[in-house]
């Protein structure tokens, strides 16, 4: 593919709000995880929760979109000069020439969970102040963000569980290549809700404590919430030489099981190979892999296999879910941003919370931050339904 520049990024997660704070949290190895005290949830696990005090009601003219997920989206948009950069791009390209392609798994379903508690005792009807389309519906977050930014180009939500906001990069690249837009706001937003907490709990996939990717004692995921946005554009002649760009996207399907990954990492390998092909790079050109690394026994084992089969054992790898938790439909975008920060700041994040790397794992797993230039980075995102997506990022 033709490279697309990350001309602005914005991030809000439990680890930090904003780029500078995120870099500080990564360098200072400060996790955003804490024992779960979300809403009325009674589960023994940790979550990466963005403090409620940060989640302000959405802008008054968009009040019907008000829900935890869109509040989190709004918090993300307000960071790092992102809104201003989009408005400037809108001046340049026109509102109809900027697409909005976002990933989410549960959108504003927490609003529905709360509305079900207030069903009419007689009729069972949901309360009149519940706005289904603007909150619960999977499209809500892209509709909200597009309205918030005053854009009117193509827009959609990709909802493929935990690969959602990695796959939006593919959609944006195709839409731009096909000439349907000149730039795109891509990203992912997912927020804590009872459905995912109790759902992953029912599958026995929640860690009892802090998630420990690739640890011999790893026991599951810590669910997190977050928002990550990227303004993607074709490189302009004046574009800084060291700007981070999307170089390749690879997608595949496991065709194996709804909630377990292919044990040999077949789909993961296909996605990584396809991303390298798209970028025109050999495996040895990759300096660092930001793993999907959820901390479940099955994911980490299959990802280890797939990475070692393709890259060998020398490539530096880590999962950053120890900082943010598993942000599900937002992890693709959030980890693409962390990968971009690694490139810009010449450092590789070593895993937090993990202390003893599982001896059965063969890839080169970083436990400490390393100062090293990473010019080409791969970021992996895999999800339920056997959906896989790998991104290659690097200097444009």
């Amino acid at each position: 593919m033709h490279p697309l520049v990350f001309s602005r990024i914005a991030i809000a997660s439990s680890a930090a709000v904003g780029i500078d704070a995120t870099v500080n949290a990564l360098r200072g190895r400060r996790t955003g995880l804490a024992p779960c005290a979300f809403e009325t949830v009674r589960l023994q696990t940790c979550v990466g929760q963005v403090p409620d005090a940060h989640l302000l009601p959405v802008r008054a003219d968009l009040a019907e979109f008000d829900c935890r997920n869109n509040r989190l989206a709004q918090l993300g948009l307000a960071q790092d000069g992102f809104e201003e950069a989009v408005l400037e791009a809108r001046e340049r390209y026109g509102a109809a020439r900027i697409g909005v392609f976002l990933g989410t798994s549960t959108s504003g379903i927490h609003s529905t969970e709360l509305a079900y508690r207030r069903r009419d005792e007689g009729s069972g009807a949901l309360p009149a102040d519940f706005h289904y389309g603007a909150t619960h519906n999977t499209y809500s977050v892209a509709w909200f963000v597009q309205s918030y930014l005053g854009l009117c180009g193509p827009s959609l939500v990709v909802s493929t569980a935990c690969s959602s906001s990695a796959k939006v990069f593919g959609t944006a690249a195709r839409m731009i290549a096909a000439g349907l837009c000149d730039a795109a706001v891509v990203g992912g937003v997912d927020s804590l809700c009872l459905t995912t907490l109790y759902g992953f709990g029912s599958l026995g996939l929640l860690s009892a404590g802090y998630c420990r990717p690739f640890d011999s004692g790893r026991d599951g995921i810590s669910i997190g919430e977050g928002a990550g946005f990227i303004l993607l554009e074709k490189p302009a002649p004046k574009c800084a030489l060291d700007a981070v760009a999307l170089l390749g996207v690879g997608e595949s399907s496991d065709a194996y099981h709804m909630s377990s990954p292919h044990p040999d990492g077949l789909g993961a390998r296909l996605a990584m190979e396809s991303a390298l092909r798209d970028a025109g790079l050999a495996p040895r050109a990759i300096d660092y892999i930001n793993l999907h690394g959820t901390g479940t026994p099955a994911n980490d084992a299959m990802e280890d296999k797939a990475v070692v089969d393709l890259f060998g054992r020398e490539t530096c790898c880590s999962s950053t879910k120890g900082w943010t938790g598993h942000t599900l439909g937002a992890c693709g975008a959030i980890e693409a941003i962390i990968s971009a920060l690694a490139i810009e700041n010449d450092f590789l994040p070593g895993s937090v919370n993990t202390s003893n790397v599982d001896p059965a794992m063969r890839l080169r797993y970083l436990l400490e931050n390393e100062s090293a230039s990473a010019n080409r980075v791969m970021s992996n995102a895999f999800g339920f339904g056997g959906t896989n997506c790998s991104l290659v990022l690097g200097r444009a």
Partner: protein
Amino acid sequence: MKLKFFVDAAAVLGPGLAGWEAARPILAGSARYVPADLVLPRLEALPAAERRRVGPVVKLSISVGLQALEQAGEACDAVPTVFTSSTGDGDVINEICSMLAGSDRLISPTRFHNSVHNAPSGYWGIATGSHSPSTSLCAFEWSFSAGLLEAATQASTDHESVLLIAYDLPYPEPLRGVRPIRHPFASALLIARARSARSVAACELRNGSAGGPSRMQDGNLERLRRDNPAARSLPLLAALAGVRGTEVLIEGTAGNTLGVSITPC
């Protein structure tokens, strides 16, 4: 900016529209449309253990996709897929939200993994053995046009052909009260970059056309088109069924209209 593609096959399942061959004269206007409850086909493609776990959403979406491929004589284990739906699986969402509103929150693991928007895509992989890319989209009322844009751009960039599957089913109460969809509907289009012997129509797509949307002449079909987001594909299906050269206008997001000009092959 125009995007060119070819339609190699179409399929439909809806009330009174029991497969492409049966629906074709109705959509072309040469047979009368008689609304009737849709009988969901058995999904033989899934292994028995998986078949027991899936509901109408998976059965409907996978069946309509397989019908389109069968018609084109295309193998199902390689073509990339684009699934698009506004509602996802309403029965599963309702059961989960009902459980979570009570004190016993032990939801079923199968129900939880079936609640993801990409459940039909996941089961499609299991049914067909395809490792090809598959995406699952949502754009509320405008999910069909979003899916068509994605499929058309895939065919013009990354893939030679792509299967678009649009589907929506009624929610149960109480969600039905806030999102009233009365009838299940699904359609599928096999879209190709290049013309081949099996191509049915050459299409040109433009985002940002004026006017629209196109409506169905038959009053009942027009009600169906408005009722179900996936049924916004009906005017396009009607043009393909009637082998008519025409332009179809479809509602898109942000007030945009998608114009599709159709020339029979």
